[in-house]
C-alpha cells in the first residue's frame, strides 16, 4: 500500500526529531511512502476558530494533492493533524454541499479539486491495522523490557465520529505497540486526557496543572517513560515538564517528575536497534538518560 506522508508543521519545525525518527522507522519497515513536499498547515483546530471555510480549503488542498498523485492513503505522524485533517476529510466526504463550496474555492485558487477518495491514517493506526503488530514484531531486535505509559492525546480519539479507529473509551492501539516492542504498558487515567498544549501560552496555570497531573500519575504508576503519537503533546509534556514540576512542588515539595517523553517512532526505533542519537533524543528537554541506561 502506498502512503502520502503528511509530516505536519511540528515535525518540520519544533520537533524535528519526530520527522527524523519516523523516516528511520518507516524506512526499516519498508513502508512505501511519498512525502507531500509542498504540504500546508492543517490549522490545528485554530484556523477553524477564525474561519471554518478557510480551514476546510487548506485541508482539501492536501487531500486533493494526494488524490492527484494517485494515492488514496495519507499518513499523518501527528495526533492533532490526524484529528483535524481526518475530521475535515470525513465532513468533505459526507457533506456534498460543503465539498462543492470548498472545491469552488480550491479550484479557483489552485486548480485542484477533491473527489473524496482519500483516507487519512495515523502511523499508529497503519502499524496496528495495515502493517500488523505481528509483522512489526519481526523487526524488533532490542526488546525494551521497561514500563511505558501511553499518552494518546485528544484528537486521535475524539470526536469518535471523525476518528473512528480506537474505541474512544478504551483505546488499545498504543498498548499493542508498546507490547510489540517488548515493553509493558502502564495503566493510568491520564492516558486519554488533555496535555494542555492549546492554552500553554495564555493559560499556563491550566496547562501546567495538566502536565503535572498526567506525568505525575504516570510516574506514580512506575513508568520509565511516556509515549505519545502527537508532537504537540510531546512539546507540552517535555518542554513544560520542569515548570510543571515547580508548580507541583509548591504543594507537594517532595514530589518530582523527570519522566522522559518519547515520540511513537522513537519508541519503535529504540527497539529496532537505532541509537538514541539517530532518533534525535538529544533534542528532548527532559533527559532520556535514565531510560537509555535501563534498556542498554
Amino acid at each position, binding site marked *: 500500500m502506498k502512503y502520502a506522508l503528511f509530516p505536519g508543521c511540528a515535525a518540520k519545525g519544533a520537533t524535528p526529531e519526530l520527522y527524523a525518527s519516523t523516516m528511520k522507522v518507516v524506512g526499516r519497515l519498508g513502508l512505501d511512502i511519498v512525502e507531500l513536499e*509542498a504540504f500546508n*498547515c492543517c490549522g490545528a483546530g485554530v484556523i477553524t476558530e477564525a474561519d471554518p471555510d478557510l480551514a476546510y480549503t487548506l485541508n482539501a488542498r492536501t487531500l486533493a494533492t494526494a488524490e492527484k498523485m494517485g494515492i488514496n492513503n495519507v499518513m499523518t505522524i501527528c495526533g492533532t493533524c490526524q484529528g483535524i485533517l481526518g475530521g475535515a476529510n470525513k465532513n468533505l466526504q459526507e457533506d456534498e454541499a460543503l465539498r462543492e463550496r470548498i472545491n469552488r474555492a480550491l479550484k479557483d485558487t489552485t486548480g485542484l479539486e477533491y473527489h473524496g477518495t482519500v483516507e487519512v491514517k495515523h502511523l499508529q493506526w497503519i502499524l496496528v491495522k495495515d502493517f500488523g503488530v505481528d509483522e512489526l514484531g519481526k523487526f524488533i531486535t532490542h526488546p525494551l523490557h521497561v514500563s511505558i505509559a501511553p499518552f494518546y492525546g485528544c484528537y486521535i480519539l475524539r470526536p469518535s465520529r471523525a476518528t473512528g479507529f480506537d474505541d474512544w473509551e478504551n483505546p488499545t492501539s498504543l498498548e499493542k505497540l508498546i507490547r510489540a516492542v517488548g515493553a509493558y504498558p502502564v495503566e493510568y487515567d491520564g492516558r486519554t486526557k488533555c496535555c494542555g498544549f492549546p492554552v500553554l501560552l*495564555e493559560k499556563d496555570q491550566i496547562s501546567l496543572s495538566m502536565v503535572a497531573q498526567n506525568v505525575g500519575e504516570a510516574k506514580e504508576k512506575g513508568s520509565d517513560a511516556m509515549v505519545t503519537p502527537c508532537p504537540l503533546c510531546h512539546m507540552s509534556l517535555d518542554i513544560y515538564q520542569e515548570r510543571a514540576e515547580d508548580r507541583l512542588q509548591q504543594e507537594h515539595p517532595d514530589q518530582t517528575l523527570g519522566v522522559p517523553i518519547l515520540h511513537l517512532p522513537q519508541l519503535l526505533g529504540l527497539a529496532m536497534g537505532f541509537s538514541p542519537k539517530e532518533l534525535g533524543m538529544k533534542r528532548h528537554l527532559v533527559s532520556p538518560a535514565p531510560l537509555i541506561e535501563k534498556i542498554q
Partner: protein
Amino acid sequence: MRVKITVQKFNPEVDQKPYPRDYFVEASRGMTLLSALLKIKAETDGTLTFRASCRAAICGSCAMQVNGSQKLACKLPLKEELEHHGKIEVGPMANMPVIKDMVVQMNPFWEKVRAVDPFLMTKDGAEVPTEALKDLHEKLHNADGCILCGACVSACTAYEVSSGFLGPAALAKAYRFQADPRDQAHLPRLEALQGPDGIWDCVRCVFCVQVCPKDVRPMEQIVRLRRLSIDAGFSDSVEARHITEFTKVVGKEGRLNEALLPVLMTWGNIKKMLRIIPLGIKMFFHGKTPFPFKRVPGADQVRAIFKYWEKAK
C-alpha cells in the same frame, strides 16, 4: 440474564471514603441501566441513592459515570454496555462533590449557568420579544438542545484543574442566547465571557462533544463564541491573538512556525514575554526553534486560498 453491577457507594456522613458494592439483577431484554438501578433499589438495597425522573433522556437527572464515562442511565442499554466493556461499574459524575452515592452537588453548576444571563435581554428595559422565529433552531446550532444534565462538565479536563471555569454547559447556553437574533445584549454578555474563567479556558479536548447525550457539542459553541468575540473587537488579548496571529502566520508562510507564534502572540505584553524567553533559549539550544524565514514550497497556493476567503467575506 444475571448481570453484576458494581456501584461506588459513598455517604460522607458515615463513610471515610467511597467503596464498591456489587449488586446482581436479572436483566430483561432491552433493560436500561436506570431500570436496573430502580429494581435494585426496590428489591435489594433501599439506601442506593441516585437522581432520576423522566426515564426518557429529557430531564437530564440521571447522568452518572458508567465504566469511566459520563452517560444518562435511562438511555443506556445494560446489555450493550456489558458487551462493550465486559463489566458495569457505576459511580457519581466527576468534578462535583458527592452528596450520596450517585447524587452530586449541582449548585456550582447552576450558578455558572445563571452567570451567563441565560435569557433574552433587551436594551433599556424594553419588553422582551416573544414571537417565535421560524428558522431559529438552525441558527442556534443545537445549543438549545441542552438538558442541563452536567455530563459535559463532569468530563471537562479544564474544569478538572480549574474549578472556577464556567464550563461547557454554561458556555453552550451563553452561545444559545448570543445566536438568538431577538437578544439585544450580545456585547455585554460577550464581554463578561472574556474574563479569566470564561471562553478562553477551554483546551478543546473534545470530551464534552463526545459525552453529550443530546449532541449539543459544547466545544463547538465555545469556538463560535471565540469567533464572535474577535469579530466584536475583543481581539487584543493573548488568547485572541493566538487565533489571529496563528492564522496570519499560516496565511503568509503556508505553515505554522512555533518559534514565531509565541513572539507574535505576546508582543507588547512584557510579563508574558519575560515568561517565555527562558524557555525559548532552552529550546534554541536543543535545536527546537525552527528558522522563521524559510521558504516553504506551496506557500503561494496557500496565500491564494487566504485571499479567496478574505475577498468572499
